[in-house]
Structures are given as structure tokens and as C-alpha cells.
């Protein structure tokens, strides 16, 4: 038994971490944020060159053939750096095509997705916060899709959109397809734009396998890992700030109330690392645990990160309440992680059912 990372995984994470530190330092994030948020193609290219875009794509199609845990380790680092990249949707689209596409569909799309030239995304939720596929109203008639998907990550940057229908069915739509419209959605997290996608008879191709549930579960785990990265970073940022900030003639970290607040923040988020590791591992290796573990990770960890983010604002005092302070960027990123693909309570309802309460 080994509950831990392989040397390769540690190296992968180290590589992504130093890439983020070098290519996406806080000033880069800040520039994207203040510009109103957009996708930074150069950054995505760099990440793709590291193999991030094709991580879970089978090797024969130019990917690395790795597992969700590897992808989630990347997600943690992107969360920790608040990296503005179309990673979430792209990763989910890669999971959809790698697991659900026919041979010819794979040949057609996977190589370009694996190299990152083609950016993918997934439309899951429907307007009104609908996340249950049984309640989806999107319809597929005579080769065309009708309906709408809300909160689609980086939809404008994407060349390929996977649309989730009922019964796990998935449909692929390409950029520029007739009848396809996107509308910006108001979203405080400017590191990852969200759009509403309107489908008015858009030509689409159905994937061979109805693997919608797995695509959702992959997304849930990646959001949990991103949220963990945000929360973990916020605790460390707050600790560093407390050591540097002087009041009453000494660093505020010397005040025990501050120290204890920071310790509580650490205990809020840190033990949850093992939960998303487990959920990611279960995704590939423990089919009977997969769904519930993903839901638990998403519900729990995104809630913890939101809580830590709130406390991090307080730990930074008046500065924490300013736009200028980077805490707000993480606060908003954590809020995205909490809401996209369903709120913690929505997933707790599922956990209760899945757990046979």
C-alpha cells in the first residue's frame, strides 16, 4: 500500500510550480485581472509545452497517458498561483474524448487537444443552477443541439465544446458552428472567464460512450484541487504577512490571537489534501468509490477554501479589503471553485443519496 505520490508525480508538481513561479508571477496574474480577465495565449502555450494540455490523453494521440491525480496535482499549482488559463474546461474535454470518443473521433480531435493548439471546454450546468443530468433540457434532434449551458469556462477561447446531455450523453460542437452563441457571464473570478452558451440548432456529433458522469467527476476533483491550492497558498501568504506587518511595535504574528487564527486556517484546509488525492486516485482505480469521493472532495474542500479566503482577508486588515491586495484574487478564485459545477450543498444532497443515508 502506498498513499502518496510517486517520484515522477513529485517532479511533475515541482516542474509546474517553478513554471508558474517564473512565467506567471503575481504581477502577470494582476495584469490579466486588471485588464478585465482574459485567456493569456502565451501562458497556455508554455503550459502545453510542459505537457499539461495533453496530460490524460493517451500517448498514441500525442498525450502523456497519465491519470487524474497527475492532472489534479497541476490543478493545485494553478490554484496556488491563481493562474489564468483555460485548464479546467480543457482538461474535462480531454477526459470526455479520451474516455468517450470513437476511434475516428479520437483521431480527429485528440492530437490537437493534446498539443494545446485546440482548446477544449465543457458545458455542464444549465441556467438556474441545474447540475443533475436528468434535469438537463438540452436536446439533440437530427444531428443538432437545442438549449443552453450556463457557466461554461473559457467558452470563447475554446475551439471545441463538449455539451453534456441527459443519460451521460456527450456532444461535440466546433467553433464557428451555425446557431452557436456565447454571452459573457458576470463572474468575479477574472482569472477564468465564464460564459453562457446558447445552442439554437447547432450541428453536433455525439460521442460514442455516454461518459458524462466521469467528465463531471473529473471536473469536481480538479475544482477541489484548485481550491486546495488557493486555500493553502492563502494561509502561507497570511502567515508571511503577519511576520512582516508591525503594529504596537512588533510583528502582529507575535500576538497569539493572530497566531491562533492562522493555525485554525491551516487546520481548516491542510488535512483536506489527502481527500482530493484519494478522490483523484479513486477516479482511475476505484470505480465504486469514484462518484462519492469526487462529490465529497468538491463539497468539502471548496467550502474550506472559501472559509480560509474569508479569514485571509481579515488577517490582512484594511489592506486585505483592497483591490490592490492579491488576497481578493484568491478569494474570488475560491468562490468560482465553490460554485462552478454545483455548490457544496447540491453535492451534499448527492453524497447523502450515494452514501445511502
Amino acid at each position: 500500500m502506498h498513499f502518496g505520490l510517486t517520484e515522477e508525480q513529485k517532479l511533475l508538481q515541482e516542474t509546474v510550480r517553478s513554471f508558474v513561479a517564473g512565467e506567471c508571477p503575481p504581477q502577470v496574474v494582476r495584469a490579466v485581472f486588471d485588464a478585465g480577465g482574459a485567456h493569456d495565449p502565451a501562458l497556455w502555450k508554455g503550459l502545453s509545452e510542459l505537457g499539461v494540455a495533453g496530460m490524460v490523453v493517451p500517448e498514441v494521440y500525442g498525450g502523456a497517458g497519465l491519470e487524474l491525480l497527475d492532472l489534479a496535482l497541476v490543478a493545485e499549482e494553478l490554484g496556488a498561483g491563481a493562474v489564468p488559463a483555460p485548464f479546467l474546461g480543457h482538461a474535462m474535454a480531454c477526459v470526455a474524448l479520451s474516455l468517450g470518443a470513437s476511434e475516428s473521433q479520437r483521431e480527429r480531435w485528440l492530437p490537437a487537444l493534446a498539443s494545446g493548439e485546440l482548446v477544449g471546454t465543457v458545458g455542464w450546468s444549465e441556467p438556474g443552477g441545474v447540475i443533475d443530468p436528468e434535469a438537463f433540457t438540452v436536446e439533440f434532434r437530427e444531428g443538432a443541439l437545442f438549449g443552453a449551458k450556463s457557466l461554461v469556462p473559457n467558452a470563447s477561447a475554446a475551439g471545441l465544446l463538449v455539451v453534456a446531455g441527459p443519460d451521460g450523453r456527450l456532444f461535440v460542437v466546433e467553433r464557428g458552428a451555425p446557431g452557436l452563441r456565447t454571452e459573457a457571464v458576470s463572474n468575479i473570478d477574472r482569472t477564468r472567464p465564464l460564459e453562457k452558451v446558447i445552442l439554437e440548432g447547432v450541428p453536433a456529433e455525439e460521442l460514442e460512450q455516454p461518459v458524462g458522469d466521469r467528465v463531471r467527476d473529473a471536473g469536481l476533483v480538479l475544482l477541489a484541487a484548485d481550491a486546495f491550492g488557493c486555500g493553502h497558498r492563502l494561509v502561507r501568504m497570511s502567515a508571511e504577512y503577519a511576520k512582516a506587518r508591525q503594529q504596537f511595535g512588533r510583528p502582529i504574528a507575535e500576538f497569539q490571537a493572530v497566531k491562533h487564527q492562522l493555525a485554525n486556517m491551516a487546520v481548516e484546509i491542510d488535512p483536506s489534501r489527502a481527500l482530493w488525492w484519494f478522490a483523484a486516485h479513486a477516479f482511475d482505480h476505484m470505480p465504486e468509490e469514484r462518484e462519492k469521493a469526487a462529490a465529497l472532495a468538491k463539497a468539502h474542500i471548496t467550502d474550506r477554501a472559501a472559509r480560509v479566503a474569508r479569514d485571509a482577508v481579515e488577517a490582512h486588515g484594511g489592506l486585505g479589503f483592497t483591490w490592490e491586495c492579491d488576497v481578493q484574487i484568491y478569494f474570488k478564485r475560491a468562490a468560482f471553485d465553490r460554485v462552478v459545477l454545483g455548490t457544496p450543498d447540491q453535492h451534499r444532497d448527492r453524497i447523502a443519496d450515494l452514501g445511502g443515508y
Partner: protein
Amino acid sequence: MDLRLGAHYDELRERVREFARANWPLRGAEAELPRREQEILFRRRAIEAGLLARTVPRAYGGAEVPTDPIAEAVIRQELDAAGAPHRASPQGTHMLVPTLLEEGSEAQKRHYIPPTLVGEIYWCQGYSEPGAGSDLASLQSRAVAHGDHFVITGQKIWTSNAFEADMMFGLFRTEADEPRSGGLSYLLVDMKSPGIDVRPLRQMNGGEEFCEVFFDEVRVPIENLVGRRGEGWKVSKATLKHERMLIGDASYARIHFQNLLDLARRVRHGGRPAIEDPGIRRRLAELEGWIACQVHASQRILSAVARNEDLEVLPDMLMAKLNSTNVFQRMTRMALDLLGEEALTEPSPDETGMAVGTPTPGRWVSQAMVAIGTAIAGGTSNIQRNIIGERVLGLPRDPRPPGSAGGART
């Protein structure tokens, strides 16, 4: 990651099950022996079978097999499931034995370890005093050297299980002019010594598991000093890692959660089983998130320790106590909410034990109080926060009393 235990551990699990079936409960004439003797017999056989006291050398009554925390976790799970009495006095097996193994003399090891492992000797931990809890290093009970004896005068308090203990290991001030941790020695005290007076303290839940222990010129042979005079603080730290591993064991959390689900099925809210209430379901699912973190975090710690990668998980180990006592308190709070009016039930004497036991309303009420106790015992939550702040986050240390290198209880 590879969470399959593998054939080796599956076989071990089978072997433990088989062993438990064959050896507990005892049969025939042995079943008529007093309970404590039955437990001793069982433990002796389990050690012979290589299932208990695994890392303790044979010379000291152990099984002497290579250390394997995963095997130990499997064994614990199976013996727990069989209801077998594999846990002898935890103060003895988990605190005293590792301390003696690291710091004890050859004679101490041979004399004390074998009977402790099987439970012939029960131990209690004499650290806290009325004036010295978190600030353990300030303790005042004196042990004065007189020829071949120390003579102890003073008082210990909140000493768990002292009423049934045969021996105490404790810290006493042997160097009167050293005010703090530098003046302490680690002594083994026979609880039947003249001059010892044990008075059970009634706990808030009505139970009487911890006690006050008074010492009036109690003579302790000099050979009962563990380690060197004045170095008791260092000796007492030897067990720290073992204690943390014990806390990392999350098996109780899962049992409590199952009990909580059963409770939610039994009690009714608005005429329907509480388990059907969407708000209750969400709260339970939220709790399950906390528990899943605790369970998997402890798996991770166990796995890292088994691979000698302790350093990678040190921060997680330092957080484990606060996290697990927080989770325990969340669970019992939920139980009280589910119980409604029954949350006023006075626990009966057999419901006040620290052990898990049948989840009756009285036991839940008691457990809700025990959960606070666990947040105090063995280093309070605030002391844990200091440790986390200082050792995980690198924040400045709290001001220390003058002339001391350290001294907070951990």
C-alpha cells in the same frame, strides 16, 4: 498511490481473523477466570502469534518482527472488529514501553516491559499538577534524593485511570534550584507505596476515570529513575512520535459516523425520520467530508511513516490532534441536535467510559463531554495552535518564562 493492500496483507488479515475466532472469547475453564486474567491470556497468545507488541524485542516479551505500521493497522482493525481485548493499558503500551525502549536501563526494560505488554501492570501518567497543566515544566512535586531512594512529596491531578493503576510514570522535581524543565526527573512509582493516596475525581459526565494522587514522603528506589537525573523532560519527549501515531488513527471517527447515521434513522423530526430531512442530510454529508479528510490524512501519515518519509508529513502530524478533536466535537454536536429532548439524558455509570460502546442517548451525551475532554487532555487545543503556528507556519514563539528553554505540554 496504490491503495490495494496486496496479497501479503490480505493473508495477514485472514490470519488475524482466524486467530481472533480461535482465541476470543476464551472457552471452557479459561472462560471462568476473572476478566483481567482472560485478557492477559489473550494478549500473551497474540504476542506469541506475532500480532501484538510486534516491534518490541523478544528479550522484553515482544514479538520482535520488523516494524510495519500498515500491518499493525490491519491487526488493530481486525482485533477491534472481533471485540478482542488487544489494547492493554494505553498509558503502558503506548507511552511507557516506547519510553523505556529508548531511555530505560536494561534492568528496567526486563522488569517492566513484559508484564506491561500483556496487561499485568497497568500504568498511569503523572504529569499534570494543580498548578502545572499546559505549563508542565513549572510542576512542583518534589523528589528528594536520600541515599538509595527518592522521597516524593506533592500532588498530581487529572491522572487518568490512577484508581486501577499498579504503577505511575511521572515527572518530579529533583533539582530544587532548577525552576523549570531542567530540574525534572522521570520516575516510576509503585502505586501501592506507603504515603500514596489516590482520590477519584468525579468528571463532568459523572464518570470517575481520572483522579488526584497525593504523595506524602513516598519512597521510590533510585533504580526507578529513567534516564539521568534532571533529564526527565527529554525522556518524556521520547514517546511523542508514538502518541501522534495513536492520534492519527481515525478508525473511531468512522464508527461514530455510522452511529450518527443510525441515530438519524431512529429519531423523528416533524413526524418523519430525521434522516429524511434535507437539512439533516446536508449536515451529515458535511460531517462526512470532515471525516473523509481525517481518514485519508491518517492513511497518508501511516503510509509515509511506513516508508521512512516522516518528514514529508510532519506538518500533517502536528495538525492531527487539533483536527481530530475538532471533528469529534462536530460529530457529538450533531448527535445532540438529533437527540432533541433526549440530549438532556443523564448518562448512567456504564455510559460514561471513554470507549465507544453502544450508542445510547446517555452515551452520546457523555461523549459530547468526552469530546471536550479530548480537546484538553494531552495538550489543549490552544497549545496545539501554538505548535502549528510555530512549527508549521514558522511564526514567532510565544514569550517564555525567564530562564527556560521550553516547557509547554504537547
